[in-house]
């Protein structure tokens, strides 16, 4: 092996990084080359100096209390992370509670929805019924033009109505004289159609269904039969002319 080649391998040889074969070759070449030997010695001295240079300033460094500081920092970090953990937990809880609140709100709303809807529907139905009854009555009140087809066969005369009213006072309603005429206008086309379809054969009934304003009308005058006229088309047909 040439001297230049030996010198090229010297650092790795010194560091013990050469393969066994190559190391052996370098070793034998070194024995024949004083220059290469000096270079190897320089590497050794340099290494020693470097080691000494790195370690000597540290020899006098005082490490008393160092481990205490490390352990204190570790504890501090643990506390911080615990606090962070609690914060995150609280944030999550807050989020959850907010979510719960929203969910509950909608839950309540949903729970209320059906009864409310039912209530609203019921109220609407009641209003419609009452309104229609009123309109029916108002129609009666308003006059023959707007009155529905004869309500019942029994209500053929005001006198009969009055009699019924007296006989069943507990299930009566009072039509105020001051009922707005607007209610009468609400009478729908069907009513009108019914009136028309009723034709002349029901005219007597229509006439008889007229009631003077403010008169008490027995809505249950004909039990088992709806009091609303257009529901009882058949009744009108069944009604005696």
């Amino acid at each position: 092996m040439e001297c230049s080649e030996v010198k090229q391998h010297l650092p790795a040889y010194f560091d013990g990084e050469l393969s066994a074969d190559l190391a052996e070759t370098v070793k034998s070449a070194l024995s024949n080359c004083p220059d290469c030997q000096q270079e190897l010695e320089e590497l050794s001295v340099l290494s020693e100096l470097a080691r000494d240079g790195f370690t000597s300033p540290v020899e006098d460094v005082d490490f008393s209390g160092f481990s205490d500081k490390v352990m204190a920092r570790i504890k501090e970090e643990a506390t911080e992370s615990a606090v962070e953990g609690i914060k995150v937990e609280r944030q999550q809880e807050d989020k959850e509670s907010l979510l719960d609140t929203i969910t509950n709100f909608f839950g309540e709303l949903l729970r209320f929805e059906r009864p409310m809807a039912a209530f609203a529907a019921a109220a609407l139905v009641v209003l419609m019924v009452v309104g229609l009854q009123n309109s029916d009555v108002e129609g009666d009140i308003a006059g023959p033009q707007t009155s529905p087809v004869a309500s019942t066969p029994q209500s053929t005369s005001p006198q009969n109505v009055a009699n019924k009213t007296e006989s069943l006072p507990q299930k009566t309603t009072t039509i105020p004289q001051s009922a707005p005429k607007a209610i009468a206008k609400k009478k729908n086309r069907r009513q009108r159609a019914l009136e028309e379809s009723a034709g002349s054969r029901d005219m007597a009934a229509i006439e008889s269904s007229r009631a003077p304003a403010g008169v008490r009308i027995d809505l249950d005058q004909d039990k088992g039969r709806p009091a609303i006229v257009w529901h009882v088309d058949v009744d009108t047909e069944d009604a005696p002319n």
Partner: protein
Amino acid sequence: MGREEDAKLVESCLKGDEKAYRTLVEKYQRRIYTIAFGILRNQEDAMDVTQDAFVKVHRNLARFQGTSSFYTWLYRIVVNLCIDRKRRAKKAINVDYDDSISHQEQPHQTGPTLASVSIAGPAKELARKELREKMQLALDKLSPDHRQILVLREVEGLPYEEIAEILEIAKGTVMSRLFHARTKFKQAISRYLNH
């Protein structure tokens, strides 16, 4: 205390034994500081990094798998922390002095050669003290990369393979960087010895 004992201490730490970790700290603090100071060349920074290294290791203790020794793991962390710190603190002042040296001609070997500086004789202590001072100046002149690789090789005695792994460079790069680091150190120390 060997690798197995370190592993036991780590195990104890994981079970919440503070004393076990304190034992590990006290065992390796000086060696870790030596690496940090060797790279950073500043006592305060080296102390900070050493402390950071132990805290970081403790933080990640559960991840320690025992495939390498505790100390190997520790110095990998300290070297990386030093690299990070150097990277962050990169300033204009942080010139690679080695470059300025490398552009100069080889110093004349008028004084003692490195091979002849092995201290001997009656003035041994005085000469050693003086030599150490010059050594520090020479090490200060090296780039962090060169100091880093020198400390891993000369102080820790790590094989090339492991140095490559720690510094995340190729083994060939380790060889060439180590060669240049030694050459620059030799030039620097020779220059100081000649004055």
